[in-house]
């Protein structure tokens, strides 16, 4: 079965420290991987994606993600967290189902950055 797992419901980090939000996936074929962020009472905003090429992908707001094929992981990272990064983060994989591709989302990880 094609799926995405975000093993941590919440990640707590102090402002200025590096952060990592974990994501692992299971999909047949080459994976297309995405990270989205959701602020309170808002829709999801696209952060970054991995399609092919360099395993380290850079995205919006200083975030980056590292694709690791052998570990089937796509962890989201940021070298120095900001309080304003506090939000809900979703990992997603594009999986072929029937005749088209669909996004499968993880359950989300709440990031709390304390001052």
């Amino acid at each position, binding site marked *: 079965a094609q799926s995405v797992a975000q093993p941590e419901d919440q990640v707590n980090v102090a402002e200025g420290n590096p952060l990592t939000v974990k994501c692992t996936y299971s999909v047949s074929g080459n994976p*297309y991987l995405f990270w989205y962020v959701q602020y309170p009472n*808002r*829709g*999801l905003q*696209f952060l970054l*994606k991995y399609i092919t090429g360099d395993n380290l992908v850079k995205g919006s707001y200083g975030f980056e993600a590292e694709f690791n094929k052998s570990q089937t992981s796509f962890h989201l990272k940021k070298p120095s967290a900001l309080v304003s990064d506090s939000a809900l983060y*979703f990992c997603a994989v594009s999986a072929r189902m029937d005749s*088209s591709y*669909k*996004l499968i989302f993880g359950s989300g990880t709440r990031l709390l950055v304390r001052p």
Partner: protein
Amino acid sequence: DAGITQSPRHKVTETGTPVTLRCHQTENHRYMYWYRQDPGHGLRLIHYSYGVKDTDKGEVSDGYSVSRSKTEDFLLTLESATSSQTSVYFCAISGQTSNYEQYFGPGTRLTVT
């Protein structure tokens, strides 16, 4: 929110009544999607459309129907609302499917009493 609007933004309705949610885009994107968001489940696909009058079911389509008569509008109908359909509903659009990101609307919070 990338030229996507949803209406209404909030709605309270009673069990057994029909409800229609509207998604409107100004991006002329081909693909449109309806998701529901529930705690612990992330987002789950209800229905999607790959063109005018072309729609297909998603993961949690029971109790929902959709219609797309124009490129810019995608309607989601709850034929007879139930309390289990209390959720936040998001519309999304994309220009392609496989490796293109989706852009999301602001959401509709629906409460079925």
